[in-house]
Structures are given as C-alpha cells and as structure tokens.
C-alpha cells in the first residue's frame, strides 16, 4: 500500500506541475489584464502545494 500511495502522490504532484505550466502559459497568452490577475491568483495555491509549503 505504501508503494501505491507514493505512486499516486507523485502523479498528483506531476499533475500540479503540469497545471502550473498551463496557467503560466495562459497568463502569458492572455490579452486582458483582469484575466492575467485571475491567473496569478489561482496559480498561488498550486505553487504553494508544489513547493510543499501549504
């Protein structure tokens, strides 16, 4: 069970990293400043989890 749990956790962190890349990509491509702010706001919890802070 430990191995399975570790594999699932690693997959989730990989998923988080992928979403971080997507959000940053969309922020760069966005043409509206309001959307850019929203992208930054939703990026924060993903970054905090990715860096094992929260």
């Amino acid at each position: 069970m430990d191995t399975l749990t570790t594999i699932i956790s690693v997959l989730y962190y990989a998923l988080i990293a992928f979403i971080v890349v997507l959000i940053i990509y969309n922020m760069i491509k966005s043409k509206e400043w309001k959307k850019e702010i929203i992208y930054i706001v939703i990026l924060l919890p993903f970054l905090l989890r990715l860096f094992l802070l929260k």
Partner: protein
Amino acid sequence: MNKSDIVRKILIGLAGVVVFVFSGISFYQHRHLKEPVVISDGVTQVKKLGDYFEGIKGSVNDCNLYFLEGAEPGGTMLVLAASHPEEPAGRLAAWLMAENGNISKGRLILVLSANRSATLVTRPGGAYPPDYTITTPWGGRKFRMGDRWSSPLDQWPDPEVYIHYPSRQNLAYVDVRNLNRAWPGRPNGTLTEKTTFAFMELIRNEKVDVVIDLHEAELQYPVINTIVAHEKGLDLATMISMTISDFEGFSIGTEFSPKNLHGLSHREIGDNSEAISLLFEAPEPFLDATRGITGRKQLLEGKDEFVVKAGKHGLLYAPIDENGWHIDVRVGRHVSTILQTFESWNESNPGKEVVCTGVPRYADIVKNSTGFYLKNPAGVNPLRVKYE
C-alpha cells in the same frame, strides 16, 4: 504582444511573486515553529511513538510520549491531546500537566501532539492564525495553531470516499486524514492510520487502564460540555460528571459512545484493547459555522457576537454570553476533569490507583490564568526542555 503588454505582465507576475514569497515564508515558519516543553520533575522519561511501532518511527507523527511514573505501582492513564490541533484547550491542558505534574502512585503518559502533522497546518481557506501566544509572568509562550486533519503535505491525495478500516463504514473523504476517524488503525495504512495503530500498540504494550482523548467542539454541535464514554467506562464517566458538577464550579454531562459510529477513539480503543476510553469535549466558539473573525483574540477569548446571536435564536447546545468561553475556562475544565478521572478511578480500583499532585485545578487556572503555570524555558537545565 507590444511592449506595454510585456511590462504589465511582468508587473502582475512580480505582484504574484511577492504574495507567494510572503505567504510561503509564513507557512514555512508555522510548519517549523518549535514549541518548548519544560518538563516537570515528575516526568521520568520521554519516549517516542515510534518506539511502539517501527512504521511510524522517524515520520512527522513520531511524537513525544511523556511518562510520569510514581514510586509505588498502580494503574496507567494515557492522555491524548491534539487529536484535533485546531482545539487548543486540550493541548494546553496536557502541557500544564507535563510542566507541573507529579505522580506518586501509578503512571501517567501524556501526549501533547497526537496528530503532530495536523499541528503543522491550518485549515486552507479558514483564515486561521498560524499561532497564538499565551501570556505568562515571564513573557509569552507561542504555540502553533493546527487543523482538524493531517497536513496534505504529509498525506495526499484524499480518496473520493474514505472507507474506514476494519468496519468498512463509508465516511467523508476528508476524514481519511482525521485521527479521530482512523482508530484503531492498521500497520500498512495511511500516515493517520499508522499513527492510531502505533497508539493502539502503546495502549496494549503498556497495559493502559484509561485513555482520555481531549477535544473542543463548536456550540452548534450537540456533543459538547460532556464526556463521551465507551460502555466499559460509563460508570466511571457518570461518577466523574456527578462529582465535578457538585464540587468544581462547572457542569459536565455524559454521553454513550455510539456502537455503530466507527473510527472514533471512544469506540475503537475500548473495542480493541483492555482500556476504558473516554473523550472530553469543551466549548470553542471559534469553530462555529456562524462565527465572525477567526483571529488570535477570538481564539483565546472565546468571544463571538455572531455565535451569541445564534444562541439567542436557540441554535446552540451550550450557553454563551458576551463573556464568551475564555481559553483559561476551557483549559481548566479539561484539567479538572482529568484529575477527577484519576480520583473517581482510584475509589473503585484499589491497587491500581493513579495519584497526581502539583497540577492546578479549574478554579486555580481561571483565577491565575493558564500562562501562570507555564515554565520559562530560559535558565533551566536544557535536558529538561523538550520540543513539540
């Protein structure tokens, strides 16, 4: 993309970096705050939970176990604090006992961080303070505010449905990280299940007679100001309740531990060991759904105008007025209820007594404050200072 677009994106990105850095520092400091325990002369040894189960050794939940052992043999009591670290009165009550208690007969085992992982995080989105400070005659002592659940940094992701082991009862998904839904645990389970399994090994190996699990509850929760008792401990709980209500200046009720609600300490410890299991609940308005601001002041003073208003509409199971439920009152309730448990147990179990001295009771704590009984870690033998 023209130049002004690039400048705007950089500025917004930098603002995000600033927020990330400041919040990250706050979360990091909270997770790594060291809380000193100036152990009393009555603490004869400090063990680790990992001494009882290899699977938890060295993990975030390999917590300290403070043993207070009397010169004379007797019974053994285990007090668990911080099963839910967002309920600080239980933790502070156990802290006072670890810093002031002496046992002349029998043994007392104190746990200040039963779910240590949950002491390292606060509820995401809850706007909880990361810590709180108890004022003492020599300054302030800072404690971590915690959460109800193990940190997702230590156990993640959660399943869609949590299937409790061994009952296979379906529980809320998030309770897979709830220590008080994970009893009796299993050796190959999640971190939280391994933690409860380790405690079960401790209870079985040390032949613990009574386990006390300290909690606080919102006033809108019906199980409050009470002792929840396994059927093996109903007589004991009733005696404690009657004596306290007569002599201590506050009242506390008793509740049956439901036989079909699994994972809770008052049910599973009693079912899976020789020990009697009791759970104490004190009121914490800070946890109520209708609360206002969740700041340090509200946490410690237990005041909340919105909860008072809910009371006026008959929505509460415990009384509250403008004076609130101060942390000293809540800590005092727990400490006196623990001491009364020893005394009531001793009356009906000759030869298995646990005699505790040096610990203040409810009236003392309300009069002098919790901080009055916390020791200054500076200037004492460093070997007598442990960290949670």
